[in-house]
């Protein structure tokens, strides 16, 4: 087939932020399907809650402090996360390094707290269906927390190497975006795990 050039795109940039870029939509899609995973797990919890005459089954509700402490840290972490976002948009390599290190440390603290939360659930996964679903949901969220922490650490290390090129800043903003998802997903889970058994 003959071709006629009717348009030139040579001046377009080679990377972009947000909905302009492909990876952003990738992150968005993964959040949608993982969000669906959380929704299904919540559905399973509520189903078991509805069909059982007593809830929690054979256990006292989880201790409140680890989950509450996490919730506070999660919410506060949005602030440094936004700073990382801004630094990435400004392509300020130095600041991006600082904020990624801060975010990595926050992630590690949360992961340690998560360990305590498992220990203070006051039930084992094999005690009852209640224990099973609680462990499932907390485990699911912990996987997300750990993966995002891993991603943050890798990006932080990258920023200290010669690979810290402009298009990596777009990756940083996607990581920021994903962290916000991990935070937002936690809020209903916190209510579900720590407060619903106290109803």
């Amino acid at each position, binding site marked *: 087939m003959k071709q006629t050039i009717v348009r030139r795109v040579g001046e377009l940039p080679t990377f972009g932020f947000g909905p302009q870029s492909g990876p952003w939509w990738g992150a968005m899609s993964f959040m949608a399907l*993982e969000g669906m995973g959380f929704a299904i797990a919540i559905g399973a919890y509520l189903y078991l809650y509805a069909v059982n005459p007593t809830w929690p089954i054979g256990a006292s509700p989880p201790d409140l402090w680890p989950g509450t402490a996490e919730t506070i840290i999660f919410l506060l972490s949005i602030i440094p996360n936004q700073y990382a976002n801004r630094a990435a948009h400004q392509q300020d390599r130095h600041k991006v390094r600082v904020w990624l290190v801060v975010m990595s440390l926050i992630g590690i603290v949360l992961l340690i707290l998560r360990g305590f939360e498992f220990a203070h659930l006051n039930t084992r996964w094999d005690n009852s*269906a209640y224990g*099973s679903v609680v462990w499932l949901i907390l485990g699911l969220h912990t996987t997300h927390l750990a993966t995002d922490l891993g991603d943050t650490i890798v990006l932080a290390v990258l920023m200290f190497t010669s*690979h810290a090129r402009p298009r990596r800043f777009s990756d940083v903003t996607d990581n920021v975006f994903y962290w916000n998802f991990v935070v937002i997903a936690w809020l209903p889970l916190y209510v579900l795990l720590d407060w619903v058994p106290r109803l």
Partner: protein
Amino acid sequence: MSMAAEQRDVRDDALHGLQLAARLESIWRTPPGLTGALMSVDHKVIGRRYIVTAFTFLVLGGLLAILMRIQLSGAENRLLSPDLYNQVFTMHGSTMMFLFAVPVMEAFAVYLVPLMVGTRNIAFPRLNAFSYWMFLFGGCFLWISFLFNVGPDVGWFAYTPLSSLQFNPSKRADVWAQMITFTEVAALAVAVEIIVTVFKQRAPGMTLDRIPLFVWSMLVTAFLVMFAMPSIMVASTTLILDRLVSTRFYDPSSGGNVLLWQHLFWFFGHPEVYIIFIPATGMVSMILATFARRPVIGYPVIVLSLIATGFLSFGLWVHHMFVTGLPHLAAGLFTASSMLIAVPSGLQIFCWIATLWDGRPVYRTPLLFVLGFIVIFVIGGLSGVMVASVPIDTQVHDTYFVVAHFHYVLIGGAVFPLVGAVYYWFPKICGRMLSERLGRWNFWLAFFGFNIAFFPMHILGLMGMPRRVYTYTLEMGWERLNLLSSVGAVMFALSFAVLLANAIYSLRKGTPANDNPWDASTLEWATASPPPPQNFDRIPIVTHREPLWADGDTLPVVAGLSAERREVLLTSLAEAEPQIREASPEPSIWPLLTAIATTIFFIGSIFTPWAVLWGTPPMAITLIGWFWPTGSKEDEE
């Protein structure tokens, strides 16, 4: 990047004709040799592998079907023991659903969608490679287990408590659950790729109302996958946790509930049928337009029907559970919505018939299969509306009536269009036409074979023959119809042998195909058959819904993309305005290594929960290897 570097950077407007083609080809091709093949991230290479693998599983699943039909052809046959029969029908159902029907549709999408939207590779090509390996390993895992007599034997929906440890102490149900995890990971990955490819990589000017209907259908399907598959992932995970670390999800003595399984399964399982069916309707629309020699009538109606079907399919899962004793009102609602979903499908059928009516149909093999589809699907739809009503469902539940119904829907609704699609796109993929004469044999054998095999099952069902029985006694009076059904099944199987023979013959001796042998209208026909590694030397610009019919014989194109590194053009979501020249990943061995690490993790965890601990670091390492920049041009912009 400095100005000097900018100027050294060669763009495609500096080159022309063969020079440009050769240059792009050297940038985009898959490296030679075995390692090169294992590293490939070309959507066409992976798409082809996906298609061939899925068809291999169709043959395997089909052989099991023939075994079952031989067993059932007469009363009290002893070919298969009851235990083996359980494994065989479970393997047949699981293979067909998880290793053939869903993957084959995604496979065609992986191959065709980037070509149809006019881009050079699928979004996230490495994820695409990973997806293929996961699918392959998951399928092999299931079949190797079966050969070692640990094939699942709990039916393709593995109801608890039958699949719980108490009633299934061997590894069989674990194999089933883990096979699910493999294939769902693969399917979800492809869904994400399709969504991003369609959203961001459409050729400039391909606005939402110019997207080819097959691409629309795959977009809707990708969303269905995205929202349905997490449910089965949760289901298979909880089942395997129950079996391996004694969680209590399905253990009634500790607050668990077996119906939870059915909800989780069918929340996925009903959309699953549409995940198979919707892409097939997309194929039908494409084939019809080409062979009716006119654009499909009612494009907006078809797009809206696809979307409506997608939404409605999530409201239907409970109709698989009518006999579990639901509240009356709920049963009524689900009956109504089950009937409602017939509306968008009906609208699509009207649009197709109108297109044929108004066109000048050319009855080549692809069109024959589409016509066969319409006939069979209408019958399947009728029996579907019947089983959607609670009283009838209660009567025929778990009989051969249901077996007949879902084969009409699955084979009529998906396999017929699929074989039509093979005839239609074979010249594009392989560069040669399939034989038309064998094609006609193929079609008529399939059409009669299919109906002879499955129509009698309706009657058998009404006569009370239950599904999943390994044999029956002579007094039941089911022998003649079963024999007839088995004869039909063999005919139907032969039609696939004809297809295979046709493919092998035509690959070597078929008429060579030019770029657009059917004089079709969409962009995949604007490039060579088979397409070069870069798909298009220059990215087309779309000004019309049927670009190749509208533009005469010159194609408007874009220039200015790199001729030094892999680059794709990203465009805006609705208007498809060019936005970014984005780097596209180079070939890499890491997706394969990651898939191997994941396979070790998944299979290891069947045998010991500790696999979760020692299986994680290799996965993390391979993932870092995958994403770590290599210092090549694509990464360093």
